[in-house]
Each structure stands twice: as C-alpha cells, then as structure tokens.
C-alpha cells in the first residue's frame, strides 16, 4: 500500500470496487454535500468530488472533500489543470494530503467555453498526464517539479480518466498507456452506453497488458429519461449513446423511463463485471445520488467491504 486510501485497499484486496461522485453546490451551504453524503453511506469505497465540472463555478472540490471526510468517506479529489498552474497544483496537493485526503483524480477539465464564465482565461500550464507525473514525483521521490526536496511527501492514490468513446478511437488505448507510463494507479472511464465499443477498447487495453498495471473502474451514469439520453448523445462532447438505448427508453411510458434507466445500468454493470480487466465501477448519478444505492444493490455490489 502506497497510501492510506480505502479505495487502494479495496482494490489491493481484489474486491470489485465501487465509487461514486458528488457534485458540489453553487453556493456555500455544506449541508448540500452532507445530504448527498448520507445517500452514499455504506454504498461506496470512495467518492469523487468534481472540480467545477463543465466549467461551472461550484464549491471547491477540496473543501467538499473535507466535508465528506468528516462523515467518514474516503474522498477522491478531482483536480483539473484548466484553472491552476504548477505552483497552485503542487500547493493544493500538499494541502489535500495534509488534511487526510488520500486520492486524487488528474484531469485536464472541460474547456471554459462550456461553462458559466466563458470569458475566463484558462491556464493549462500542464496537462492531465503531466499532472499524474507531478503527483507521482511528489509522492515517490519527495520532490517538487523543480527537483527540490519537499519536507513530507503527500501520500495520494493516483487516478485519472479515460474516454474510450472519444476520437480518434485508435489512440484511446495508447493514451491510457501513456497515463500508465506516467504513473496512474486507477482509472475511471467515461460513462458507458455503447458496450460494443467499450469492449473493443478493453480488448486493446488487455492486449497491451495495461489492465495489469492499472485498476480500471468502468463509468456508469443512469439515464433518467429519453430527453436526458438525447441530450447526452447530442450535446455532451465525448459521449456515445447508441440509438438502441434511446429506443429502449422510448419503448416504455414516460413515468417508467427512469426505472428503465436504472435497469439498463444494472444490466451494464453485470456485463462489465464479466469483462476481463474491469476492477470496479464508478457510478455517476448526476444530481440523482439517491439512486446509487439502488443501482449498487441491484447489481449485487452490497455490502461494501468495511473500511
């Protein structure tokens, strides 16, 4: 064990891991996080806290992590390189580790063009792969990026994202290979609706032997309705929602569509569990955290190993 991360412990023990995510509020009310936390108690091994996802200003991932930490969770700090240069990044890494955060997810982040402040200047001093290298260097070498020694190394379990559905498809497994070479230890994928394409990607990943070097958690997001499915398909970059999913949701009455969405999730998780190289699931129930328990239960993932 390189860290005190519960997620690392669960994965190390060979358990099929379950993580979820929590989107912080657009305000200073800590109870929003606490309420979401309540819904996830006993359901997950770790909780991601998004970092101004879609470039919309929200409570910081760092502070939301601390609120969840107080509740007994093992939070996963999402960090994007869009808003911070290497000085701020290294400083936040030290601060997070000092306050007992054990996991970090290294991301480049959505471009600010999508967000609520499209006039903003972005940073991108480093990219997501370089962020992985940064955390690893600080943790394993005890050094800053300038090679100066730091006084106490931050012990963070290092994660990153992978999107098998973005283009060009042929480099998606290779890019995961770069992240592995940079030192990533767990991966959470983009939400999977197109199982065929995901399987193809996983085949490449397994052929390259990457599944033995990194723990891959498959991303799952329940669809609430046909409308949401269409929105994800057409308006969210890098999202692949096949027509058969939309047809299936359309085939049930409107009031039953969310149940159908949960059913699809559970079926997907069952199929993913069978797939070689999948070490867990990452359930992102966007503003629908109350459903995570039902999904985990339905997929036979409860109870979770005790922390």
């Amino acid at each position: 064990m390189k860290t005190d991360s519960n997620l690392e412990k669960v994965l190390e023990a060979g358990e099929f891991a379950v993580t979820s995510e929590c989107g912080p509020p657009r305000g200073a009310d800590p109870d929003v996080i606490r309420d979401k936390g309540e819904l996830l108690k006993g359901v997950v091994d770790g909780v991601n806290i998004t970092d101004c996802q879609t470039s919309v200003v929200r409570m910081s991932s760092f502070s939301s992590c601390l609120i969840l930490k107080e509740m007994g969770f093992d939070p996963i700090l999402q960090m994007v390189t869009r808003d911070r240069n290497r000085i701020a990044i290294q400083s936040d890494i030290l601060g997070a580790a000092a306050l007992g955060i054990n996991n970090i997810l290294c991301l480049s982040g959505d471009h600010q063009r999508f967000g609520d402040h499209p006039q903003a200047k972005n940073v991108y001093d480093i990219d997501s792969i370089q962020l992985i290298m940064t955390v690893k260097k600080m943790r394993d070498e005890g050094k800053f990026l300038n090679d100066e020694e730091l006084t106490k190394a931050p012990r963070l379990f290092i994660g990153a994202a992978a999107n098998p559905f973005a283009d060009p498809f042929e480099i998606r497994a290779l890019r995961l290979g770069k992240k592995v070479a940079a030192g990533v230890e767990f991966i959470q994928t983009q939400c999977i609706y197109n199982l065929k394409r995901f399987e193809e990607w996983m085949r490449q990943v397994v052929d390259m032997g990457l599944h033995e070097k990194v723990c891959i958690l498959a991303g799952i997001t329940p669809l609430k309705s046909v409308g949401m499915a269409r929105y994800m398909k057409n308006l969210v970059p890098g999202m692949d929602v096949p027509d058969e999913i939309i047809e299936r949701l359309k085939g049930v009455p409107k009031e039953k569509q969310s149940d159908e969405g949960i059913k699809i999730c559970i079926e997907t998780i069952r199929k993913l569990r069978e797939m070689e190289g999948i070490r867990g699931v990452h359930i992102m129930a966007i503003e629908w955290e109350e459903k995570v328990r039902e999904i985990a239960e339905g997929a036979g993932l409860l109870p979770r190993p005790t922390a």
Partner: protein
Amino acid sequence: MIVAEGKSIDEILEMVDKYDKILLIGCKGCVAVCAAGGEKEVQFLASAIRTARKRDGREIEIREVTLERQCDPEYVEQIRGYAGDYQAILSIACGVGVQYMAEHYRDIPAFPGLNTSFMGGALEQGVWSERCQGCGNCVLHLTGGICPITRCSKSLLNGPCGGSSNGKCEVNPEIECGWQLIIDRLKVLGEFESRFMEIFPIKDWSSSRDGGLRKMVREDMKQ
C-alpha cells in the same frame, strides 16, 4: 503574419470624438497583407470618418499616411516633421505599431484602429487562421509540423482530450482537433509509433509571455 481586423467605426469615432485634426497612419506590413491596415484601408477609414463627422456637422481634417512598417524606428520617424501639427494619431497597424507611435510621439495621443488578433496565415481569400503563439521554444519538429500549443484549445502536449469528436474540437465544431491533425500527419511521416507514446515533459513557459516582457539581442547585428 500578424492578423488584425478593423475596430467598428463607432468605436473609432468615439476615440477621436474630441479632435478635429488627426493623423491616420497605415502600415505596409502584415496588416496590409491581411487587408486591415494598408494604404487602401487608410483611404476607406478616412473617408468613413469624414462622412460621419460631416453628418454631425463637425468636420475633421485627416492626413492619410501609410508607412513601410510601424514596428521600425526608421519608418516611424518619417512623420517627425509634421506629427506635431496634429492632435492625435490613429494607427491602423498592429498593436506594435500603435505602441511605437505612442513611444516616439509621447505628447500626442495614439489610438488603435484595429484589434490585433493572432499570428497566422491565409486559408483562402478573406479567411485567416491562427498558427503560432510565440512560446519561444518551438516543438514543431516533434509534432508533425502542427503546433499543439496553438491548435489544441487546451494546449495539451500529450494527445487529444476526451472531447475530440470526428476530428473536431469540443470547443466548437468549426475548430479542427489539433491532436487529430498531429496524429494524421505523424502517420503520413511514418513517425506516429515513435513519437506519440513518448511523454512530452512539462513545458518551460519562461520563454513565453509568462517570463515577462521578451527582448532579443543579436550581438552580431548590433552597431
């Protein structure tokens, strides 16, 4: 070249509103090539300002000049003899030219008639596109001759983000994904295998604008 475009006539009229005798100065360099600040544009703009001011019943005297370059003291000094006869300078060079005017003629206000946009080139008649950000440490030999810093909206150095779709960038479907272009070109050159998997180290941005005002001294050329 430096690509620029004209400010709106309303914005320009507002800048020169309190003056009735101005120097309008174009540049025969980049901005003439991109049809924003050359001799022809000087004529058009002067006539537009005169017409507008005439309409308002406040005529304005404009002297039209187009210099060889506004980024070179030798040419900027060519107006020395008569600059003092005017209340303001309206420069339709790039931002460099406007500042050279301000530096050389400190007691005459200088106004920008253009918005300086980017370093780029023409794609076709009337269309220009950005190609370089002047980071001061060129990596084009490693990236198939396509600049990741300029052409990737996030300036990523290690491959496309998860927002690349059908060769387009997540920011705008009219923007090509810079990394798709790099990958395609590396393949043409037979360099994909060797280049793509190599992790691009964290970039030293101190040669970029981030290192403060940049200055270059060529000892071999100094007199």
